[in-house]
């Protein structure tokens, strides 16, 4: 790859160059890097709101705090926790932050294909977020249905489901528009010589994700509109009292919301595929296998939705088919894990915080994946469905998977994004409470689920109490770790040492430009002559 190093005439993207200054310069910027940071700040803020709600929900399970909130408030909190974490954090997730910031740089472009649309997507996102918050305080109060809004409960409850659902509808536009933008960017804006199989794997992952966003999101958008119409006009699509079918709602909801799980995890896998070669100082093992596995996850993952409904009473044939497809979709994930681990083989491993978090991701994601396979087996599903087991499972996938990958990616690209380096010691220190607390909390939930503890319970039967205490203590450690982690990064933004242009010795295009990147990324568009992870062969010393 060509190297247009250091001394560049362009100012950093962090310097205001236009007519507007300060906050307005950020809110009106169409620069993909600034939009990425707008997403980063807003998403991390929502993440902490969601985490605090989680903390309160855990406290209520302790005898001492059981009176902290009422049952109605508890139901509102788990709904809100789900809506915030899913729609405002993990679905926009890595593409909104790192996709926006690095996708153009990784393929050697100056910006995304539609920069204005990109900024508009962020405004859709913020509008959806504000509406979701408004839904708490207006109408009949905060929704209490869980983030899944199952009919007919969501049609009958007096709480403000309509506005919350409308918020999710608006958020869907942000997701779809981002998808369109990324697909176009990848098709049309690759640098000369950047053929499909020279694209970094992060780009493949974002590409797969963008297609799911584009194809699946309209379905949930329609579904949510139908819920609103049903609530206002009683049209009787889902309400059995009017000839509707509650299972139809579940199908429509999961046709989107299961692929959404892959919207959340695929980019995370992409980031891991970037991080491991850089620190192993060698090319990735099985490039094409990883690229194709992303695409096949996107494909097969769109056909497994009804495994959320095995106990709903659908036909035997449907159960058989969806269980089978669920097993098949596990294969490409396994392929990725094997390839990542093989990439460490005979590398020259420089152990740094991003790699530490990436390897933690693999461990936690494996637990998430394997517990997912358990749920896919019908005889087991009939026991653990809708228990704490599934709550533990999807936190291993979404938080242990996407969350830890998000942290790894943040550690990996932080010096590039901000031009500052964080304290590695502080980051290592934050890992211990985070990792230990995480496993106490969510492995505790897995066991509770096997014991038969149903999810979304304000009070629990006495036999479950001990593990509830373990999980709650785990949640404190986890939050402590998160505060240390983000504290260290925040400190680094203001007081950190200046970062080098290429602190990790990476070879993808973002490491060929200054930290922080100049306004238009590249002095001149690079000409790409080889694969993304080409480390110069070194002589044996």
């Amino acid at each position, binding site marked *: 790859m060509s190297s247009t190093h250091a001394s560049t005439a362009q100012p950093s993207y962090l310097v205001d160059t236009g007519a507007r200054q300060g906050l307005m310069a950020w809110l009106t910027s169409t620069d993909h890097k600034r939009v990425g940071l707008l997403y980063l700040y807003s998403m991390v803020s929502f993440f902490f709101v969601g985490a605090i709600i989680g903390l309160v929900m855990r406290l209520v399970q302790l005898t001492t705090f059981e009176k902290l909130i009422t049952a109605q408030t508890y139901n509102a909190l788990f709904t809100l926790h789900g809506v915030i974490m899913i729609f405002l954090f993990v679905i926009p997730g890595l593409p909104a932050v790192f996709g926006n910031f690095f996708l153009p740089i990784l393929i050697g472009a100056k910006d995304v294909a539609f920069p204005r649309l990109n900024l508009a997507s962020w405004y859709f996102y913020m509008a959806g977020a504000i509406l979701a918050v408004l839904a708490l305080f207006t109408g009949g109060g905060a929704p209490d249905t869980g983030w899944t809004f199952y009919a007919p409960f969501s049609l009958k409850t007096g709480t403000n489901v309509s506005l919350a659902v409308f918020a999710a509808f608006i958020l869907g536009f942000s997701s779809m528009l981002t998808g369109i933008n990324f697909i176009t960017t990848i098709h049309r804006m690759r640098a000369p010589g950047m053929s499909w199989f020279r694209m970094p794997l992060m780009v493949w992952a974002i590409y797969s994700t963008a297609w799911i966003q584009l194809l699946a999101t309209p379905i949930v958008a329609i579904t949510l509109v139908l819920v609103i119409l049903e609530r206002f006009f009683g049209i009787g699509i889902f309400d*059995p009292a009017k000839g509707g079918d509650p299972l139809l709602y579940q199908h429509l909801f999961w046709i989107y919301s299961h692929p959404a799980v892959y919207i959340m995890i695929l980019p995370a896998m992409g980031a891991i595929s970037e991080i491991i070669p850089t620190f192993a100082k060698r090319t990735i093992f099985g490039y094409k296998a990883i690229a194709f596995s992303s695409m096949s996850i996107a494909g097969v993952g769109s056909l497994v939705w009804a495994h959320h409904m095995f106990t709903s009473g659908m036909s035997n044939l449907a159960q058989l088919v969806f269980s089978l497809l669920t097993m098949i979709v596990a294969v490409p994930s396994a392929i990725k894990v094997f390839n990542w681990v*093989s990439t460490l083989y005979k590398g020259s491993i420089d152990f740094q915080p991003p790699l530490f978090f990436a390897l933690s991701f693999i461990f936690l994601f494996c637990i998430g994946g394997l517990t997912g396979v358990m749920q896919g*087996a019908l005889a087991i599903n009939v026991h653990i469905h809708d228990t704490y087991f599934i709550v533990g499972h999807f936190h291993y996938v979404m938080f242990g998977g996407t969350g830890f990958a998000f942290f790894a990616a943040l550690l990996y690209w932080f010096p590039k994004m901000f031009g500052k380096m964080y304290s590695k010691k502080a980051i290592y220190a934050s890992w211990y409470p985070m990792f230990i607390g995480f496993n106490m909390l969510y492995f505790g939930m897995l066991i509770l689920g096997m014991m038969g503890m149903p*999810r979304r319970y304000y009070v629990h039967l006495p036999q479950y109490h001990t593990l509830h205490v373990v999980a709650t203590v785990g949640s404190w450690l986890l939050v402590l770790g998160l505060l240390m982690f983000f504290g260290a990064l925040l400190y680094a933004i203001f007081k950190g040492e200046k970062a080098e242009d290429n602190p990790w010795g990476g070879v993808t295009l973002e490491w060929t430009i200054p930290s922080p990147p100049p306004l238009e990324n590249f002095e001149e568009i690079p000409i790409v002559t080889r694969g993304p992870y080409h480390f110069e062969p070194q002589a044996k010393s």
Partner: protein
Amino acid sequence: MEWMNQAALSAQKSDAVFFYVFGLSVVFLLFITALMIYFVVRYSRKRHPVAEQIEGHVGLEIVWTTVPLLLFLSIFYYGWTNYEYMRQAPRDAMVIQVTARQWSWSFEYPNGKKTKVLFAPIGKPMKVEVRSADVVHGFFIPSFRLKIDAVPSRTNTTWFQATKLGSYDIQCTVICGVDHSLMLSKVIVVPEDEFKAWYFGGEDAPEPGKNLRAAEAHPGLKDMPLGLAVLTAKGCLACHSVDGKPKVGPTLKALYGREQQILVAGAYKNITVDDAYLRRSITNPMDQVVRGYPPAMPPTPLSGQELDEVVRYIKGL
């Protein structure tokens, strides 16, 4: 352990698959984790300063595509065959109508008897037809590894054959409103003849699982303290233990002076158990049901002396 209690055939079927998948998962997770740690240590920059650029290996890719695929397919197959069993109730199964509503369960037997807890004879197939009167609920018996949703306008069926005497939790698993977590009941597995005596008996036939088991457990009433003898004879011990063991109702051990929450006229109230509470609970149990227990206890008429003896006995436990 209490919670891995297999109280029905379906539990044995489900657990067999679970342990198969669990075993595979543990092996896989340990293997991957050990390999990662080994590589990180063995190929650290210190020990291995020059990386080898290995692009991939087609043979390996094929192996780790096909082997997991075959294993996953075996999990699918095993999971399906053991589940299909749960879908097909035998023809001679007794059919129980289960109705879920916000926020309680009710059970109706073929002869029209209605209960708030589900009585099931041991070793006999029981088919349950689950319906909902309002929103979606989930009918879940953890000790049977059995779950089926109650969906309005649909009738979902499943079946079980209990293999162990005792009482087991029924819980709602689909969020259905403010008291979702209190939508509890019990399934009580009793000997078949006892079940029949109740089922074919008149309206005043004693509910199964009480007198008979109490009498079996305590053949010599006259050697007991008077209070215990009354408790035994009236069948109280079927649901209340005197040694702290959990049963359908709260244990009587250390009950006196215990602080607990009771449901009074639809609201929870904290109380300390005293004489007055005990007497009222025996004569009018529905007035003050303890939180977390089903409202299942029938009023028990006792003479004044019997009541005094029972209260004195409970105080000493």
